Structures are given as C-alpha cells and as structure tokens.
C-alpha cells in the first residue's frame, strides 16, 4: 500500500508552513511524525492534495524544565520526552511517554502531532488535563495561546483554525505549600503495544500528610475527548486519603465517562476498567507524593 499522490512542500519555519497551509486550502495537511497521518493516507482514508512537511523546521524539538513548568516543542518525539529530565521530575510524563504505541512509534510520533490529531484515545490529553496546560499556536494571523481544555473540542477536532499549527505545549504543576507534596500517575490499559488504550486514567494529588488538599482526575478513551472528572477530584479534596475515599472517587470518575462499545470492549467493561484504573492511579500518585519510587507502564490486557 502507498499513499495517493500529493504535492509536497517542505516548510523552513512554522510561519511559512502556516502561510502555505492557508493558501493551499482545506485539503492540505501538515505532516509531523506521520504516525497517524501516513497510515490513514495508505488506507486512503486521508487523501490530502498537499502535504506541508514540518519535519525539517528547526528548533521545535525540546523539553525545557524550569521549576514547576515544563515546555515541549511541538515536534518533540515521545521517546525524547520519556528520556527527559522533566519526565524524571514528573513521573506522570514518563508513565505516558514511555508507553505510547511501541518503541518505533515513540521514535517518530510527536507530542504536537498527537494533540493536534485529538484522537479520543490519545494518551497526552488526559495526562496534561490534570495540570494547567496551554497550547501555543502559530497561524497566518500570528500567535495565540489556548488553554488545553479549550483546545480539544471534539473527537479529532481542535480549536486550530485554517493554517494554524501547534508550536509549543506548556504544562505547569500547581503551586504547593511547604507542608504539601505532589504526586501524579497515568495508567493506560490496552490489548497490546501497537494499539490505542481501551481506557486510561490520570491522577494528580497534593497531599499534606494523609489529607488530600487538591486533586485532578481525568480519563482517556471513554468519551469523544479526554474527560476531566471534576466530581472525582471533588470526592478527594479536603479528605483523608483512605480506601473509602479512593473508591468513592473511582466511582465518580467511572460515572463521568461515556464509553462506546467497540472491538476493544463493551461500554460496561470500559466503565469498570476506567474505575479500576482511577483507583490505581490515585494510589500510585499518593505513594509518589510520599516520596516512593513507583514504576508504571501501559498495561497489556
């Protein structure tokens, strides 16, 4: 199989790419790592007239980590994020980046491409939703910054306008007092390495002793977009983190999802799975907040 014919344009900068895309019209597509677009083009599910290649634009591959802020260049590959200092500081980033697809996909796929693709089962959105995350974009009209929760609008649909591209993703960990500790975790369950998750869960906690001062819980693959499970977070906030509290949060999170039955499982199965993953993500986030090293990776089931 090979893709249909297209006109190939190599951009030297994002600004140039944005101008090209705007001029070429709706049937032109930007190409980053190609791990979603190339398979779609081979199956002729995507038949763009033009590809604007971003892969040779310099200076877009980096992970910069300063205090509680992490900035990712749009073309940073998942494998580079997994190996970054930021992923060592924020293990939730490693949980996510080191488990996306398989090694070969992680060596090509980019965080900007993944977010712009907005697959309902994508791994980055649930992880980044648990933090204050902004998407910095470049378009024909200039630059703008969009909060992540306003960036992803629907399945495969983002706030990016015609010709607009992701330039940088900025994630901020919440401020915390000297007696507070933060921890996060992301767990995705999938059939095997190559496929998207059947369900996934991300948790971020701020603990003072055993009391949960702040929390964010989100789910992936159980809705048209990643789900910010605010009621689950509410079930934790201000409470002592015990078995009952965690189970109440997991129950609230599972109820927040709206999974569709497909070849990965029934809606009911996914709901139960999401609840179980939330419970474990909270437990691991809490252990990490207490200073424990806990290794997490995507699980094949």
């Amino acid at each position, binding site marked *: *199989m*090979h*893709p*249909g*014919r*297209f*006109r*190939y*344009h*190599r951009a030297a900068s994002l600004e140039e790419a944005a101008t090209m895309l705007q001029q070429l019209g709706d049937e032109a597509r930007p*190409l980053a790592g*190609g*791990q979603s677009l*190339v*398979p779609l*083009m*081979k*199956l002729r599910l995507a038949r763009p*007239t033009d*590809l604007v*290649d971003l*892969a*040779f634009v310099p200076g877009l591959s980096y992970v910069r980590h300063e205090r509680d802020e992490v900035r990712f260049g749009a073309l940073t590959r998942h*494998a580079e994020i997994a190996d970054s200092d930021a992923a060592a500081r924020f293990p939730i980033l490693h949980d996510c980046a080191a488990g996306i*697809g*398989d*090694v*070969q*996909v992680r*060596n*090509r796929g980019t965080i900007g491409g993944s977010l712009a693709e907005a697959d309902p089962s994508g791994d980055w959105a649930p992880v980044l939703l648990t933090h204050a995350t902004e998407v910095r974009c470049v378009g024909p009209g200039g630059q703008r910054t969009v909060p992540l929760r306003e960036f992803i609008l629907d399945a495969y649909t983002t706030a990016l306008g015609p010709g607009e591209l992701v330039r940088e993703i900025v994630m901020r960990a919440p401020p915390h007092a000297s007696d507070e500790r933060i921890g996060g975790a992301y767990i995705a369950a999938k059939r*095997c*390495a*190559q496929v998207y998750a059947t369900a996934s869960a991300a948790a971020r906690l701020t603990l003072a002793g055993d009391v949960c001062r702040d929390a964010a819980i989100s789910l992936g693959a159980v809705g048209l977009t990643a789900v910010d499970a605010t009621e689950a977070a509410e079930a934790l906030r201000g409470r002592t983190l015990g078995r009952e509290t965690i189970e109440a949060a997991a129950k609230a999170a599972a109820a927040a999802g709206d999974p569709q039955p497909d070849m990965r499982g029934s809606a009911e199965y996914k709901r139960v799975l999401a609840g179980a993953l939330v419970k474990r993500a909270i437990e691991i986030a809490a252990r990490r907040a207490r200073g424990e090293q806990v290794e997490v*990776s995507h699980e*094949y089931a």
Partner: protein
Amino acid sequence: MPEAGDRVAIRVTVNGKRHEQEIEPRQLLVDYLRETLGLTGTHIGCDTSFCGACTVLLNGASVKSCTVLAVHADQGEVTTVEGLAKDGELHPIQQAFKDHYALQCGYCTPGLLMSTCHLLARNPSPTQREIRKAIAGNCCRCTGYQNVFDAIADAAKRAAADVPPEAERAATSAGER
C-alpha cells in the same frame, strides 16, 4: 508550485553508502529501500505499522519503514539488516539469534534484529522486562518469543564481556565434549 507526483531530490546514507535520487514524495521508506535500492532484507509484513518486520534505524532510532515517507530520510542515515554483518562475519546480535535458534521462518527477523540494535545501543544490559518492552512492536508468528528473549539477553551479555561470539561458542562446545 509543485505538481502532484513531482519528484523530490533526496540525499540519504544507507549502510554507510551515500545515495542521491529523485523520488516520488509518496514513496515509503520501505519501498525506497526495497525497490529503489534493491535492499530486500527489510520486509513488508502487515504494511499497517503493526508487525515491525520493516523496522530499520533512521538516524540511529528504530522506525517502522512502512510508516515513514522516504523524504523524511533526506539528509539522514539509515541502517538496514544488510548493514549489520561486516566482512562476512555476522553481527554479534545476528550470531546470538542464530545460536539461540531465535527464528523459524525468519520473516520477522530483520525487524527484530534492528529493534535489538536500538535497545542495546541505549541499554547495554537490559532486564527481561526491558527486553520484552523493547520488542513489543515486533510480531513473530513462529517462535513464541522465548528464544528471541534469550538471544537478546545473550547478545547483551556477550557485548558486556566483549567475548567474540565465535570464541565463546568454541569454548562452550569444547566444554560439552
């Protein structure tokens, strides 16, 4: 303004040899290697980015060449299975696969070898778990994988001890006698 189907010039180093060609931008890296350069050691299995038979190294990192456009190898370096053996001597990873009978039909083997190259270049002494994770993107329908795991672990061990595989095998078979 380019036209659909207009060719694009690329310059790529494959197994140490430089190539300059004009290719169709829709050509996949695997087709460039197999059809344009005649390097048929890289196999097309599923052709859907699943099986990993087409795995090659692009700028030192393993990729599925059925899911990479050849234009993305422009100005880059590619290593295929043909680039492993030197002067008629199998690469230590190839030798370990042979010694452990880590293949049956051999169709997936080029991809597994290249994934192993990627792993051992970054992690010279992987754990069993790390080995399994490293080849999760490579399907083998014959072996049941156990011999593959053993071969990779052994290749790592030999590289650490810096024992030429030939010498070690001779020593082992001498001991058995």
